[in-house]
């Protein structure tokens, strides 16, 4: 799965989790909680959505890796590689 595919999935899940957020307008480098006003309920929904879409179970201790779109994409890419290897 390419980084672009992962990015597309992350954005799709975000759209589902927070339909009231303009996901296309997000800056991928900036903290999602700050720019999109996501709270712990949204983050948990994001984690659940990613688990279902990618099969990656993000443990609570790694939630900080999901704070921006860029960070989430590189974290998920390495987790997917781990699972393959």
């Amino acid at each position, binding site marked *: 799965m390419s980084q672009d595919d992962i990015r597309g999935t992350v954005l799709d899940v975000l759209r589902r*989790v927070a339909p009231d957020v303009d996901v296309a307008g997000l800056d991928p480098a900036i903290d999602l*909680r700050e720019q999109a006003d996501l*709270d*712990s*309920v949204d983050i948990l929904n994001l984690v659940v959505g990613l688990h279902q879409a990618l099969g990656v*179970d993000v443990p*609570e201790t790694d939630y900080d890796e999901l704070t921006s779109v860029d960070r989430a994409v590189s974290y998920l890419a390495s987790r997917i590689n781990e699972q393959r290897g």
Partner: protein
Amino acid sequence: MREYLMPSLGADMKDGRVVEWFVGPGDSVRRGDVVGVVDTAKGAIEMEIWEDATIEEIVAAPGTKVPVGEVLLRLGEPEGGAVEAAEAEPESPESLETPVEPASEVPPPRGPAEPQPPGPPASSAEEPISPAAPMPGLVRASPAARKRAHELGIDLAEVRGSGPDGAVVLEDVLAAGGPTPHITPLARRIAETHGLDLSSVKGTGPHGTITRDDVEPLVPEAAHRQEPEGRQRTMRDAIAAAMARSKREIPHYYLESIADMRRAEAWLAAENGTRPPETRILPVALLLKAVALSARDYPEVNGHWTEDGYRPASAVHVGLAVALRGGGLIAPALRDTDARPLDELSAAITDMVQRARAGRLRSSEMTDATLTVSSLGERGVETVIGVIYPPQVALVGFGRVVERPWAEDGLLGVRRTVSITLAGDHRVSDGHRGGLFLRRIAHLLAHPEEL
């Protein structure tokens, strides 16, 4: 003939616009079914019905704006004809049947039909009036007069007061509200909603009464579709109305306690470490459960203030204040918060918060809360001091979990802690019991295995 009325979905709701019906004439419905969607200042709400019945007639067509308490549907006997079904319903949420704030929905009696006590305004003696000297620009008025004036949209400054020192009393407000009796309540409301001037409208009803039929053609077409900005404004208006009422009528007192969160956080981390994302427990679920269990033992914080005084609730349905992105607030209820396992409660919170933000809550969620919790979460402030949501009588506020210096057994350390506050209604409870209630919450958070 039974009727299904526009429910009051909160103290701040005056009317709602029917968006769609999921039922039609001849359909049979069961208690708890969602029968349609109504658009309110707080978003689109799915309306549940609280009896088994057959739909006979749809009175309010989609698109119609209907005041609280007016007829939406006419109902017939349920299939199979269980005649007693409607009566045998002890559990029916009273707030659906009886608007929480009936006084503001029913136009006040006007004119000679309502006999007033003769002689000098006897009522003024019973209405406490602030003894403070009037400040320039400030109108002296009794609380009852102030409340009714607000409901009627009357500017107190324009009312001539007949009470002591010229203070405005209830009678003065009722008299001031009286001069235009030839407009039906519905027509008046439509006009108010859209800012229409009725002074030049000719009524076609009996005796020239201005009715809905006279007013509705004047409503601009665009107003039938509410734009997002309009939504923001109506929600702000609804919050303003509820909070102003709260501050006007509820004598708040405030308490704070700091709770040690080390054990709760450790317990939660261990528990969630073993769970897949789908069943993980949100920290706020612990907070809600601790409040709900404690509320069982303190009935004076869990219930509703009604016209007949305080009515403690028999169950604990905690309302959770949910902030909407871009502004606005809604506090839907989680039924039987005290009786649900933490993982189930957490899933219910997740679902409800998402629906609150998408504008798809159910009518029971809007009316059932017996106590509200406001938790501003991990990016919030350290202390939340809340405003009670009427007709409830208490609000518990949680700040962000932060490290604080902690002295215990003569030793000073640093602990992860949370501030718990209580905004209580002094008509119902006092600081002593309120303090014990907070201490019970803190105890439960320090012993998460009891949750």
